[in-house]
C-alpha cells in the first residue's frame, strides 16, 4: 500500500485546506526569511473588526487604507524609522522587503483613515535580520575553554602571527562569494541575487551622495471562490471571497506570470498570462 491510497482512514485526504483558516484571535507574527525579507501572517478577529467599526464608523473603516507598518528598531529597542506597506487585509500574510539587513524589525497591521490618521490593530513579535556581509568590527576577544567546560577564562589582545584578520576574512569572503556564485543552484521564480543588490547599495553609500530604488510586483485578481487558482505551477490559496493577491520581487528582464483558474468541478478552465519587462538603468 502506498501513501497515494491510504485505506479507509478518515484523515487520509488531508491537505492544507483541512486546517482552519484561523483561530478566532487577533494576532500577528513576523518571521525572518533572509537579510532583506521577512514574512508576516496575521489574523484579525470579528470582535476586533466590530470594535474598529464602532470606533471610527463603517464608512471610515471601509475607505481606510490597510497597511503593515514596518518599524526599524535601534539596538535598545526604540523606533528608528518606519514605513508602510499597503496590503489586502484578507490576504492574511505578506512578504516584506527591507533595505537594511542586520537590524531588528517589528511590524504592525493597521489602518490609515481617509483623514490620514493611523490606527494600529495588532503588533508582531520582533525579528532581527542577519547581515549579508563581513563585519566592520575588528576588535578581537579570545576565550579559552578547558576540558571541564564550566571554567571560562577570557583573554583579550592575544597576538597571533600571520596576516591581519581583515585580509583573511576579506579574501575568504570573496572566495566564498565566488564559489556561491558559481555553484548556487538555479532559483525558482521569485527573489534572486540578494547579495549583489546589497553590494550595489554599499557602493552608492561610499560616494557620499546616493540613491537606492527598487521595484516589486503585485499580482492580484479574483475568481469564483471554489476554483483552483495556479500561478505558474503553484496552487494559490484563495481568500474566502475568491480574491487573491501576491507580491513578488521583480528582477530585471522578462517575467512571465501564467495565471490559471480551474472551476471547482474541474470542467472549466480560464487563463490570463501577464508578461512584465523590467529594465533598470543607472545614470551618473
Amino acid at each position, binding site marked *: *500500500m*502506498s*501513501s*497515494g491510497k*491510504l*485505506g479507509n*482512514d478518515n*484523515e*487520509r485526504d*488531508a*491537505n492544507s485546506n*483541512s*486546517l482552519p483558516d484561523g*483561530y478566532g484571535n487577533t494576532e500577528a*507574527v513576523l*518571521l*525572518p*526569511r*533572509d*537579510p532583506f525579507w521577512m*514574512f508576516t*501572517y496575521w*489574523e484579525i478577529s470579528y470582535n476586533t473588526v466590530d470594535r474598529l467599526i464602532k470606533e471610527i464608523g463603517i464608512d471610515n473603516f471601509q475607505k481606510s487604507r490597510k497597511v503593515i507598518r514596518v518599524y526599524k528598531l535601534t539596538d535598545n529597542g526604540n523606533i528608528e524609522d518606519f514605513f508602510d506597506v499597503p496590503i489586502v487585509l484578507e490576504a492574511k*500574510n505578506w512578504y516584506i522587503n527591507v533595505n537594511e539587513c*542586520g537590524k531588528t524589525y517589528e511590524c504592525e497591521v493597521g489602518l490609515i483613515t481617509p483623514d490620514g490618521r493611523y490606527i494600529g490593530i495588532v503588533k508582531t*513579535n520582533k525579528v*532581527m*535580520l*542577519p*547581515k549579508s556581509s*563581513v*563585519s566592520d*568590527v*575588528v576588535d*578581537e*576577544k*579570545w*576565550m*579559552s*575553554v578547558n*576540558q571541564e*567546560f564550566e571554567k*571560562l577564562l577570557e583573554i583579550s589582545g*592575544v597576538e*597571533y602571527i*600571520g*596576516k591581519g*584578520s581583515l585580509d*583573511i576574512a576579506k579574501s*575568504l*569572503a570573496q572566495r*566564498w562569494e565566488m*564559489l*556561491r556564485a558559481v*555553484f548556487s*543552484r538555479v*532559483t525558482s521564480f*521569485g*527573489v534572486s541575487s540578494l547579495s549583489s543588490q546589497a553590494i550595489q547599495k554599499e557602493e552608492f553609500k561610499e560616494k557620499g551622495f546616493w540613491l537606492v530604488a527598487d521595484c516589486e510586483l503585485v499580482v492580484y485578481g479574483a475568481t469564483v471562490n471554489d476554483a483552483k487558482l495556479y500561478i505558474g505551477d*503553484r496552487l494559490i490559496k484563495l481568500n474566502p471571497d475568491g480574491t487573491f493577491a501576491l507580491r513578488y520581487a521583480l528582477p530585471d528582464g522578462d517575467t512571465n506570470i501564467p495565471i490559471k483558474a480551474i472551476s471547482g468541478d474541474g470542467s472549466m478552465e480560464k487563463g490570463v498570462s501577464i508578461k512584465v519587462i523590467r529594465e533598470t538603468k543607472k545614470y551618473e
Partner: protein
Amino acid sequence: MNNKELGYLCLVLHAHLPFVRHPEYPDFLEEDWFFEAMCETYIPLLDIYERLTKEGIDFRITMSLTPPLCNMMTDPLLQERFKNYLYKRIELSEKEVIRTKNTPFYKAALMYEQRFKRIRELYEDFYNGNVLNGFKKFQDMGKLEIITCCATHGFLPLQIRKEAVNAQLKIATDDYFQKFGKMPRGIWLAECAYNPGDDYFLKSYGIRFFFLETHGILYGTPRPRYGVYAPVYCPSSVAAFGRDMESAHQVWSAEMGYPGDYRYREFYRDVGYDLDYEYIKPYLHSDGVRRNVGIKYHRITGRVPLSEKQPYDPDDAREIAAIHAGNFMFNRERQIEYLYGFLGRKPIVVSMYDAELFGHWWFEGPMFLEYLFRKIYYDQKTIRLITPMEYLSIYPDNQVVQPIMSSWGDKGYNEVWLNGSNDWIYRHLHKATERMIDLANRFYNNTNPLYERVLKQCAREVVLAQSSDWPFLMTVGTAKTYSTRRFVWHIQRFTRLWEMINAGNIDEGYLSDLEWRDNIFPNIDWRSFSTIDTEKKAK
C-alpha cells in the same frame, strides 16, 4: 601523536531521515526511504569502519545520527520490516545472478548478491538487528564521534517561542543519553540553522560544539580572524565550526563533482522498471506499481537518454572511486599547506555532507570514503583526520564571535523552509506550539497517569509537526502530498488531544491509537515545553 601535520581535516556526515513508520498499513511506500538508506548508506559505512579497524587503519569521522533516525533504527516493527526488505533483496539478487549469466550485467549482479549478503551478516550477526550497536562500538573506540540533532530536526530560527527550542534540545539530548549511555558533546542543528542566542540552550545541555554554513561565521561579529579555518566561540562559549566550501563543492557540484563521473552507477535506471513485470512484481509494493527496487545495472555513461545507458562495471567504478579519493586528498593537502602559510596556525578544514549522499545518491560514495581513509593513513603526512573534540583539546583558545542567523539551505538563510509553497504551515505550527506550552505550564505538577500519557502524546505530535522535513519536501516538490499530510495529521492529532484535555474528557481509545502510531520518544519530557524549564536553561 604525529605532530608533523600542517592541518586537520574534519569529516562530518549528517545522517537523518524523518520519522516514517506506519503500523496501520502492512506495507508503506515512504518507509522505503529508511530501508534504502540502511542498505545503501548506514550499513555500508559500518562495513567500512569494520574493515579499516580490522586492518589497523586509524581514522576519524563525526556523524550526526538524528533522534528520528535512532528511533527508527531501534524500533522493533521497522527492524522486522527491514529484515523482510533485505531478505527480498537477497532472494532477487540470487535469481539475478542466474538470469544475467553470459550477459554484460553478470558482474554487477554478482556484486549485488555479495553486497546484500554482507549487509545481512552485519545486520543480524554483528549488530543483532540494531545498527546503533555498530555505531556505538566505533564511538567507544574513539574513531567515530556521534553527535545529536534537534529532536525531530526542527528548524529553530522559525520558532517564535524559546520553549520550542528548549523542547527540541531537551528531548534530543535525553534520547541520545538513552541510546548511547552518555550525553552528546556536539550537535548538528537541523539544516545548520542557527539563531543567535540558541547557543545558550546548547551550553545548558552540555553541548560543546555545533556546525555552521560558511557565511554563518564569516559574517559574524567581530570579523573572524581565521575565517572558517578555526572554530569560534559563541558568547556562550559553545564552539561553532564553519563549513569549508571548497571541499563541499568538489563532491556536491552537479557539473564538477565526483559523483557525476560517467563510470559511476546511474541512479535512475533500475530493474524495478526494466524487468518483466511478472518476474519483478513480488519485489514491488503491494499496489504493483513499478518503482526502484535498488538493483541498478547501468553506468551514468554521459548525457544520453536512460535507454542508451551502458552496462555498469563495478571494477571500473571502484578504480575511479580510488582516483577521486586520491584527488580529494591531494586537493586537501594543497589547501592545508596554503592555509597554514597564510594563517600561521594549523587550519581545520571541515567537510560536511548529508550522509545519504554517500551510497544512496552516489553509490560509490562509501567506497570513496574508504579509499580516502586508507590514503590519508598510508600516503601522506600533511593532514590529519580529527574530530571537533580532539581539535578543541589541542586548541582550547579561540576567538569569540557572534555568528549570524544562517542555514545550509539554498541561498543560505531560511527561504527553503519559508516560501510560497510552505508558509501556510507556520500559523498552525505556532498555534499548536503555543497551546502545548500552555498545557505544560498548566499541568506542570500533574500526577494523574492518564493525563501524563495524553500530555506525552501531545508533545510527540507537536515535535513531529515541527520537523523541517515537511516544509523542505513541499519546497522541492517531491513527496509533497505525503509531507503535507504528515504535517496536517500531527496538527490535527494534537488539536484533538488538546480539545479533550480542555473538555476534561479523554477518549482513551483514540489516545492508545496515537500512542501506537506515533510512538517516537517513549519517555518524552513534555515538561520541556514549560516556560519555567525553559527559563532555567536559557542562560
